[in-house]
């Protein structure tokens, strides 16, 4: 029963959600929307588990004074303070002037932006490695990338202005993006979509059941 009931529920709800894609009638769409909304409740309950795990792991490290325990202390205090302030302020906790809003604007947002800004440096280092040409395929990749990059800035057409319009770098880069690039991208998307459907079918039919736990 520990497995049969979840498998049965998965199958019924899975088929129902597929049905709701094709049947707009309220008999199907209203319960479908309700099921999606209830997922929010399930997820919110899950956060209790997540929060408990964060506290358990980090408090244990603090108690044992493992390396970097002071940072874990900061983490735990920040977590508790944020949760407490949010709970005290209740709904509208992100309204201007609230303490939660201050935490968001002055702590969370700048830290998040700082992390995102680092991406520029990682792109540079990754691009450097991508253009190290060692094989024939890498040559093709580097050549296509060079054409696309130069063709997208004015100097591209300035360099090839004396050629017929079809041979301008801007035209060639457009063709690369619209034809081979798009074809490859769509092929990947189609394959992924089939993979998604196959995985979904396996889950609905109960063939893929390992996510339910290892105990029978």
């Amino acid at each position, binding site marked *: 029963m520990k497995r049969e009931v979840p498998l049965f529920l998965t199958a019924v709800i899975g088929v129902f959600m597929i049905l709701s894609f094709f049947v707009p*009638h*309220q008999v199907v769409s209203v319960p479908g929307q309700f099921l999606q909304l209830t997922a929010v409740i399930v997820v919110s309950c899950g956060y209790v588990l997540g929060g408990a795990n964060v506290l358990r792991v980090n408090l244990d490290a603090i108690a044992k004074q493992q390396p970097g325990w002071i940072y874990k202390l900061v983490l735990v205090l920040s977590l508790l303070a944020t949760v407490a302030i949010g709970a005290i302020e209740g709904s509208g906790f992100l309204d201007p002037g609230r303490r939660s809003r201050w935490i968001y604007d002055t702590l969370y947002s700048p830290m998040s932006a700082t992390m995102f800004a680092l991406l520029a440096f990682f792109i540079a280092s990754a691009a450097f*490695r991508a253009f190290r040409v060692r094989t024939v395929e890498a040559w093709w990749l580097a050549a296509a990338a060079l054409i696309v990059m130069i063709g997208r800035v004015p100097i591209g057409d300035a360099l090839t202005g004396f050629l017929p319009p079809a041979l301008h770098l801007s035209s060639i880069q457009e063709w690369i993006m619209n034809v081979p690039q798009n074809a490859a991208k769509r092929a*990947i998307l189609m394959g992924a979509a089939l993979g998604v*459907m196959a995985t979904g079918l396996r889950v609905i039919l109960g063939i893929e059941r390992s996510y339910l736990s290892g105990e029978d």
Partner: protein
Amino acid sequence: MRLLASEAASRQDDGTTPGRLRGVPRSRITEVPLRPNVPATRGWGLVALLLLLGSAAGRLPAAHAARADSAAAAADTIAAPAPASGLVVTDVPNDAGRALTLQWKPSPDDVKGGTRVVGYALERSETPAGPWTVVDSANAGITQIDDSSPDRGRDYFYRVTAVGPGSSTPALSITGPVRATSQWMNTTRGSVLVSIAVFFAFVLYFMASAQSGKKPFVRRIPGVDAIEEAIGRATELGRPVLYVPGILDIDEIQTVAALVILESVAKLTAKYETPIRVPVTYPIPFAIAEEMVRSGYLAAGRPDAYDPDSVRFVSPEQFAYVASVTGTMMREKPGAHIFMGAFYAESLFLAEVGFETGAIQVAGTANVHQIPFFVVACDYTLIGEELFAAGAYLSGEPRLVGSLKGGDAMKIAIVAAILIGCLLETLGMHGFKAWMATQ
């Protein structure tokens, strides 16, 4: 099924023959004569003002006439526009009875460059006599909008009013009763239904075939084979394995696929007695990941080696998660990094930092825009569908492997459909393409 409500006015105010009442029995039509062109002044002031202010922004929200008396009074001297006409109200097809489409003929004064018509106000009432409520408005030149606010199955009457700078003119007739109704089948998704039915038939056939003992051939997937190599390398180095199951919640099927792979990875780490670290973004995947790792250790016959701290809930916030995982990479220096699931901007963060640590890296995602980053920074990459195939491939379970063959058969069907579509379009036959189009 398409049209369950329509225009009601049998006498049209522009003197033309009324349009065909699409799908509505004549008995349901109510013709309601209206008072002739009645310039309204104060009540429409706010509508006019909003239409003037919002002319650059396309459609405006529904306006409520109330407080713009002064603006209206200033514009009173301009003559009222001629009325709009021919309002046709139809049920929006293939929905749950949530919307009606309103289409009308513009006022004769609604000409390009003209100033007498600012826009139109669409009013609704539950009785022909009113009271009327403005439900939406549109700028001059626009002759169709959807009203998404009606209650399903309730009769309504509509009228369109041409709004000028100083006054407004309701149409000479109203349309109704009309009602929004829900449909049992979204007819624009017929092609999807057929495609899914064919695909499921393929999958079920090949699964049954595999179950009967006919072993299906599946090509080797180097990225999946590399997972064991990576775990072996980590074991040799005496370092843990880091497994990242994407950054999305369990409603993302890539996360499900990543968690399925996690069980096989955990089984291998248990077999090689190598610690595993699984940082997770959302609580539900966290709970499932714990189960997967535990079941992997159970399957390997080493439940005692399972470390409850191996799976850690981090944060659903993207860059907080990145900070935590990259910190783990730098502090613990895992020997292998396995990234499976849905990734966005953090893909390059994780892969580049991982590259700097010298770990062997295997990645897999169906997010097309992140694949190049993984290809550049990782040793092996599972592209698109390989991510979904990996779980079945690693399990070796005949029915799961058989389902992969169903996917291959469907690809052949898709290629055939593309070729047939190209051929028919070349021959000027557009029915197949139209059937394939979905909403």
